[in-house]
């Protein structure tokens, strides 16, 4: 956890040395009332981050604090009772450790979510990396790059629900793929697992989130000094050697940022898993959703806190691999 704290400390932007006339006047007013001992030169920087900090505190830290608080409250059928209890946490992990190696619901659900997370991450990484590579190194004209990027965003032109429901006519028992395969004689019975299966969930998630991998990797690749590629070539490196020893190391920040996007979204997703899995596949988000609709806010909050910790762990692991701050 010390790593986390140091990360946060350094993320805070250094005070800007530039001072506008208006800002300087404002800083004089502000510094008079502050006791923190900050020099007047720091004040404008504080003012500059104030609006965002306020939004961050109001709409992120406060709700997060409330969630943590409620997760330790008690509840009944229709209300939450402000009395400290660890009931929700105890119930979430009920029988989880005594029954091992048999998995309890919570572990099963997390395992399932992690499985999707890992597969989707791997697939989007490979696909996203090569699409970004193509866009960055093979497409020369900016106009074509922009056009191709727009094509990548097509999956987002409709609502999430419509996007997922529309898979049925394609992948269903009587869908396009099955009926075509049957007609050309490739199969005799429709393939059942094209939809409402792990396969369809992973495919749908990959379809949706590859873009989140493409954009940051592309961004990293565009910053790579082309002279380095030439130098590698001049030094006698093969295409794969250049890719492995030059391009990939320099694309790491993009890869990590893209991975963070994909991992956090997939960990929390329950709509896609629900619709594409025929509601038969568990996800942490769905458990939270079910508890919310049953007005069981404390266990829902406790599950959210556990999910948050799990996601933070994954991100912590990713940032261990690459020092994003240094690379940016």
């Amino acid at each position, binding site marked *: 956890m010390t790593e986390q704290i140091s990360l946060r400390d350094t993320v805070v932007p250094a005070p800007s040395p530039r001072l506008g006339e208006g800002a300087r006047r404002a800083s004089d007013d502000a510094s008079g009332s502050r006791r923190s001992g900050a020099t007047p030169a720091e004040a404008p920087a504080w003012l500059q981050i104030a609006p965002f900090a306020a939004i961050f505190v109001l709409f992120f830290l406060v709700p997060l604090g409330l969630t943590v608080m409620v997760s330790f409250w008690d509840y009944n*059928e*229709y*209300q939450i009772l402000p009395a400290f209890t660890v009931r929700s946490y105890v*119930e979430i992990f009920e029988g989880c450790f005594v029954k091992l190696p048999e998995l309890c*619901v919570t572990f*099963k*659900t997390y395992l*399932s979510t992690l499985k999707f997370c890992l597969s989707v991450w791997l697939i989007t990484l490979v696909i996203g990396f090569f699409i970004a590579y193509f866009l960055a190194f093979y497409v020369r004209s900016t106009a074509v790059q922009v056009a191709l990027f727009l094509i990548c965003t097509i999956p987002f032109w409709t609502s999430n629900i419509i996007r997922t*429901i529309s898979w*049925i*006519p394609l992948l*269903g*028992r*009587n*869908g396009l793929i099955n009926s075509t395969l049957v007609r050309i004689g490739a199969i005799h019975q429709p393939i*059942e697992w094209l*939809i*409402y299966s792990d396969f369809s969930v992973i495919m749908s998630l990959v379809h949706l989130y590859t873009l989140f991998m493409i954009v940051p990797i592309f961004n990293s690749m565009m910053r790579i000094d082309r002279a380095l590629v030439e130098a590698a070539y001049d030094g006698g490196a093969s295409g794969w050697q250049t890719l492995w020893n030059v391009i990939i190391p320099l694309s790491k920040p993009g890869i990590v940022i893209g991975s963070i996007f994909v991992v956090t979204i997939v960990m929390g997703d329950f709509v896609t898993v*629900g*619709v594409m899995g*025929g*509601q*038969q*596949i*568990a996800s942490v988000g*769905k*458990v939270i959703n*079910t*508890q*919310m*609709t*049953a*007005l*069981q806010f404390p266990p829902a909050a406790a599950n959210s806190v556990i999910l948050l910790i799990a996601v933070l762990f994954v991100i912590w692991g990713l940032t261990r691999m690459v020092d994003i701050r240094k690379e940016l």
Partner: protein
Amino acid sequence: MPKTTRPAGLTRRSVVKGAGAAATAGAITGFPAVHAQEPKVLRYLGTAVNQSSAIAKKVKEDTGITIEYVPVTTDEVTKRVITQPNSFDIVDEEYFQLRKVVPSGNLLGMDARRIKYADKITPIFTKGELPNGKKIGDQGTAPKKVFYLEGQTSKTFSAQPTEWITLIPTVYNADTLGIRPDLIGRPIESWKELLNPEFKGKAALLNIPSIGIMDAALVVEAMGLHTYADKGNMTKAEIDLTMKVMTDAKKSGQFRAFWQDFNESVNLMASGEVVIQSMWSPAVTAVRSKGIACTYQPLKEGYRAWAAGFGAPRTLSGRKADLAYEFINWFLDGWAGAFLNRQGYYSAVLETAKSKMEPYEWAYWMEGKPAEKDIMSPDGTLLEKAGVVRDGGSYEQRMGSVVCWNSVMDENDYLVKKWNEFIAA
């Protein structure tokens, strides 16, 4: 305030419809003298299924009341009533949810003396029997158990009739399994068919724990595995047993999918992914209106029923309360009842609805007789050709075969846990 900007737009429309009084009020807003004629607006919280624009339009014509729909899902209604009781003026919710809502104290008893047709409300609600006196099943949260409050602000139900009613009934129905007769090709008579291996990978169940488990219980009972004292209020052991049967079926691949949203059930059925599933009446109609055969199959074990009604938030008073009562009285006056009956639901005051329906419509929808003429939906699309008989027959046959009602169990907390296990299995 957004409300002050609204009357302008509405006023223009009102003029077109000839509602002159409202127009005048809108035009001279700001004068204290005309405060009494402020636009009549009611914020109506409920599920989208019940919030018809045709009803809102007709109310406006008849009474000048503008209905502002706040559409949310079934579970969300309860959440809103409990967490944001000031965000609506009238709520349309199901009786089974009252066991959560009433103890929270956020609902105000409706004054029976201000409801014109209070004593004409069908005895299904007040006594748990048909108009002809036949008792019907009362397992689960039957409306008669939660119909009266001890006092207007009481948090407990009264077993005896009082003048304080929890919800003024609007609509109710009897639910059963929907099937694709063309793909099944043989008669279906029992709930146990849902788990028949013949339909492996082609069955579906709804993914709302409190309702899904009751359908499951009907199946378990039909299979002869267990007889419940009350399917709507199981013991922990009964929940375990029911979920075990369903979990085994799930693991063996019986279910193609679970559905949560009405439209999902329509898609599953229409695409042929599923041939037998728990379903709601309008979903069956939606599949049929695509020209696909779908039957709302009456089963020998009976139906699971539900009922909804209008309630008032704790804060309702004064002019808003007057408007709410005016609207409810309009609702029970027949037009809305006829509208609902024509959708295959049932209305709370039968005689007023009958007066607003054609005799052949009443005969088809309520008496279970073959349609004399083509049956049209309220919006004018063809529902059934002449000669067809309604699935399940007459009102007495359908409502008379109800065995249990949607409910919230005492062990609801445990049920939700078990349901999450079931989904994860």
